[in-house]
C-alpha cells in the first residue's frame, strides 16, 4: 500500500544513530523527572529548549516528545512505592498502586503499569498513524476564518478544561495574547508596546518566556513548598505480574487505551484527565467496586494505560492542525518554530521525514521505556534520596546558563528571571501558566488569521457563519463558553431542591462536604 511508504521511511529516520540516542536521552530524562517531585515535563522541556538549537528539527522533537511520555512512566514509580504521585497524571495510581506495594506486590503494580503504558502508547501511535493524515488532508481546505475559529476554540478549551478557576485561566490566556502583540506589526510594520527598547523590537522571544514561566517559576515555587518527609520506599523484588493479574488487567488496558486516545486529542484534555477518567470507568464497570482502593490491579492498569495513550494522542492536534492541545504541546510548538518549521496541515506533506520520524520515534521510545522501566527503578529510587536542596541550584544554573546560550544575550537571561517571578506570582495567586503560554504561542497566528479573515469577508466577521467548518467551530466555541454558566445555574437549582428536601425530611445527614455537586465530583475522581 503506497500510503504506508512515508511511514516506513520514517523508521529509516528514527533508526539513525543520532536520533536513537536523542530518543533514549529523552525518555530517560522524562522518566527521571517523572520520578523527581518538583519539575514536571513542561518545565523540563522548557529548560532544555536551548539544547534543541544545535540539532536537526527531527532530532529535537524526538527528544522532547520522549521527555513528555517518559514522564508519565516515571510518575508511576513514586506513586506505587512512596504513595507520592510524581506527576499529576499518576495521582490515581496511588490509591491502588501503593496498596499493592504494601501487599508485597510492588513489582506487579509497576509491571502492569509499564505494560499498560506500553500498550496504551502503542495503540495511540497506531491511531495517530491512521488518523493524522486524514485530519491533515481535511484541514488543507482550511482558510483564515477556519484557523481563527480553531485557534480561539483551542485556547478556550485549554483555559476552561484546566483545573482551577476558569476566569483566571481566561485572564492568563488573554494576557498571553497581549504579550504576543509586543513587537513589530506584521501587516503595517508599526512598533507596538516596545517602549523604544531595541531588544523588544522583534517581539518577546518565546524561549525565555517558556523557560521563565515554567522553569524558573517552578524552581522558585519549590523553594517555598515544604516537601513531605520522604518515607523509605517499600522494597521491590523483581516480581512480574502473574498470569491472573494480566488476565484481569487486559480489559482495563483495552478500555484505557481507547479512552486515553480520545481524551488526549481534545485540547485541554490530556494525561491527567485521562487517568482520572480511566480510574472512574474501571470502578464503574467492575463487578466488585469495593476492591478499589485496596489493591485492585485494574485501578493501576486503567489509569496508567489511559495517561500514556493521552500523552501520545495529544500530539495529533499539534502535528496535523498546528493547534497545541496543552501547555507542553505549546512549548513543543515553540520549539518547532525555532527550528523554522511551522506546524500545520502542510507539515505532513512539506516535512514528511519530520512528521513520520517523530511519530515512529514514539514506537521506539515506548519499547525503550518498557525495557528500562523495571531495571531502572532501583537507580531512580536512589536518585530520589538526593536532597532537593542540592538539585534546586543545579536546575537554576542549567536554566540561567542555558538561556544565555540561545543568543549569547544577557537580556534573555533577564527575561527568564523576570518571567520566573511572573510564573511564581501567577501560581501564588491562582493563575495557570499553561493558557498564557498557549495563547502567547498562538497569538501571532490568531491575529494574522483574523485580519486575513476580515479581508476575505470584507470586514464582516459574521461571514464566518456562512462557511460550514468555521460556523461549526464558532458554535462549539459558544457552547463551550456558555456551558459552565448553564451548569452552575442548574447546580444551584439542584442544590436548592435537595436542601429543601432535606429540610422537609428531618435532620440533615452528617455530610463531610457541602454541596451535592462536590460529592458527585469526588466519587467520579
Amino acid at each position, binding site marked *: 500500500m503506497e500510503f504506508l511508504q512515508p511511514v516506513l521511511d520514517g523508521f529509516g529516520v528514527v533508526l539513525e544513530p543520532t536520533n536513537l540516542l536523542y530518543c533514549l536521552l529523552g525518555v530517560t530524562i522524562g522518566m527521571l523527572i517523572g520520578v523527581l517531585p518538583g519539575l514536571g515535563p513542561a518545565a523540563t522541556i522548557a529548560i532544555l529548549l536551548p539544547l534543541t538549537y544545535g540539532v536537526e528539527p527531527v532530532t529535537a522533537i524526538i527528544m522532547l516528545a520522549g521527555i513528555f511520555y517518559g514522564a508519565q512512566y516515571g510518575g508511576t514509580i513514586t506513586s506505587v512505592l512512596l*504513595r507520592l504521585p510524581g506527576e499529576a497524571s499518576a495521582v*490515581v495510581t496511588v490509591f491502588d498502586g501503593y496498596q499493592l506495594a*504494601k*501487599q*508485597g506486590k510492588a513489582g506487579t503494580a509497576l509491571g502492569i503499569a509499564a505494560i499498560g503504558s506500553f500498550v496504551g502508547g502503542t495503540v495511540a501511535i497506531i491511531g495517530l498513524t491512521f488518523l493524522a493524515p486524514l485530519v491533515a488532508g481535511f484541514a488543507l481546505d482550511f482558510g483564515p476564518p477556519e484557523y481563527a475559529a480553531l485557534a480561539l476554540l483551542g485556547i478556550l478549551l485549554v483555559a476552561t478544561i484546566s483545573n*482551577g*478557576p476558569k476566569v*483566571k485561566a481566561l*485572564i492568563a490566556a*488573554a*494576557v498571553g*495574547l*497581549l504579550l504576543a*502583540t509586543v513587537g513589530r506589526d506584521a501587516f*503595517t510594520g*508599526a512598533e*507596538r*508596546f516596545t517602549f523604544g527598547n531595541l531588544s523588544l523590537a522583534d517581539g518577546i522571544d518565546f524561549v525565555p518566556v517558556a523557560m521563565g514561566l515554567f522553569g*524558573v517559576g517552578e*524552581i*522558585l*515555587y519549590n*523553594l*517555598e*513548598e*515544604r516537601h513531605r518527609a*520522604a*518515607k*523509605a520506599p*517499600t*522494597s521491590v*523484588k523483581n*516480581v512480574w505480574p502473574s498470569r491472573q493479574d494480566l488476565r484481569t488487567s487486559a480489559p482495563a488496558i483495552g478500555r484505557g487505551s481507547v479512552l486515553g486516545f480520545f481524551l488526549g486529542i481534545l485540547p485541554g484534555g490530556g494525561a491527567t484527565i485521562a487517568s482520572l477518567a480511566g480510574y472512574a470507568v474501571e470502578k464503574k464497570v467492575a463487578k466488585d467496586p469495593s476492591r*478499589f*482502593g485496596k489493591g485492585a490491579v485494574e485501578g493501576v492498569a486503567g489509569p496508567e494505560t489511559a495517561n500514556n495513550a493521552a500523552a501520545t494522542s495529544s500530539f495529533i492536534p499539534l502535528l496535523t492542525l498546528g493547534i497545541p492541545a496543552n501547555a507542553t504541546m505549546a512549548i513543543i510548538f515553540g520549539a518547532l518554530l525555532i527550528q523554522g518549521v511551522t506546524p500545520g496541515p502542510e507539515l505532513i506533506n512539506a516535512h514528511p521525514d519530520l512528521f513520520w520520524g517523530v511519530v515512529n520515534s514514539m514506537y521506539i521510545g515506548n519499547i525503550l521505556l518498557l525495557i528500562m522501566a523495571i531495571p531502572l527503578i532501583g537507580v531512580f529510587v536512589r536518585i530520589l534520596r538526593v*536532597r532537593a*536542596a*542540592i538539585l*534546586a*541550584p*543545579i536546575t537554576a*544554573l542549567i536554566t*540561567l*546558563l542555558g538561556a*544565555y*546560550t540561545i543568543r*549569547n544575550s*544577557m537580556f534573555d*537571561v533577564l527575561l527568564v528571571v523576570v518571567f*520566573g*517571578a511572573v510564573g*511564581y506570582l501567577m501560581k*501564588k*495567586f*491562582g493563575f495557570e501558566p499553561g493558557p498564557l503560554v498557549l495563547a502567547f504561542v498562538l497569538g501571532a497566528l490568531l491575529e494574522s488569521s483574523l*485580519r486575513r479573515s*476580515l479581508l476575505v469577508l470584507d*470586514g*464582516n466577521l459574521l461571514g464566518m457563519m456562512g462557511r460550514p467548518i468555521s460556523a461549526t467551530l464558532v458554535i462549539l466555541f459558544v457552547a463551550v463558553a456558555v456551558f459552565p454558566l448553564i451548569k452552575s445555574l442548574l447546580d444551584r437549582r439542584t442544590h436548592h431542591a435537595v436542601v429543601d428536601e432535606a429540610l422537609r425530611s428531618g435532620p440533615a445527614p452528617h455530610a*463531610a462536604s457541602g454541596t451535592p455537586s462536590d460529592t458527585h465530583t469526588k466519587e467520579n475522581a
Partner: protein
Amino acid sequence: MPLPAREHLDGPVETTDPLDPVEAQTPEELVAQWEAEAPPQAGPVANLAASLVVLALGIGGIVLAVGLGIGTASSPGPGTWPLAVSVLVTVLALAQAVIGRHGGQGGEKFTRYSWITLIGFLTLVAMVVLIPLIGFEIPALLLCLVWMRFLGGEGWRSTIVYSLLIVAAFYAIFIAALGTSIPHLI
C-alpha cells in the same frame, strides 16, 4: 527520620513511620488528607490585588492601542487587535474582581517560607547583574552556597563540597566541552 521498611521476599511489607501513625485507608481518606495538608487558599484580598493588576494592564493596553491607530473593521490598523485583546483583559479583570470577592478562587497564601523564594529570586537577579562583570564562576558558586546552606539547610561541609563540584561540572560542560561563550573568569 522514618524507619526503613523490613524487607520480605514476599508477603506484606511493613512500613512503620512515626510521622504518619494513622495511615489513610481509602482513596477518599487519602484525598481528604492531601486537602488538609495543602496550603491555605489565597483569599479575597489577594484576588482583588491580582484583579487590579490585570485591570491596570488591560487599561494600559487600551490606551496604548488607541494611540497606535485602530482603523476600521475592513481595514484594521496596528492597534485593532491589541485593543480587542486589552478590552477582553479589562472585562475579565472586572469579572474576576467580582467573582472572587469572597475568596475561594485558588492560589496560595504567602507564608514565612515565601521569604526563601524572595531571597532565591534576588540571587537570580544578582547573577544577571554579576555574570557580565566577573564571569559566571563566582556568582554561580555564591548562588549554590546560598541556596544549599541558607535556603536548603545543608551543613557547611556538604554545601562547600557540592558547590565547588557543581561549578566545576558546569565549567567542564559549558565551557570546556560545549565551548559556549558564557562570560567566564578562568
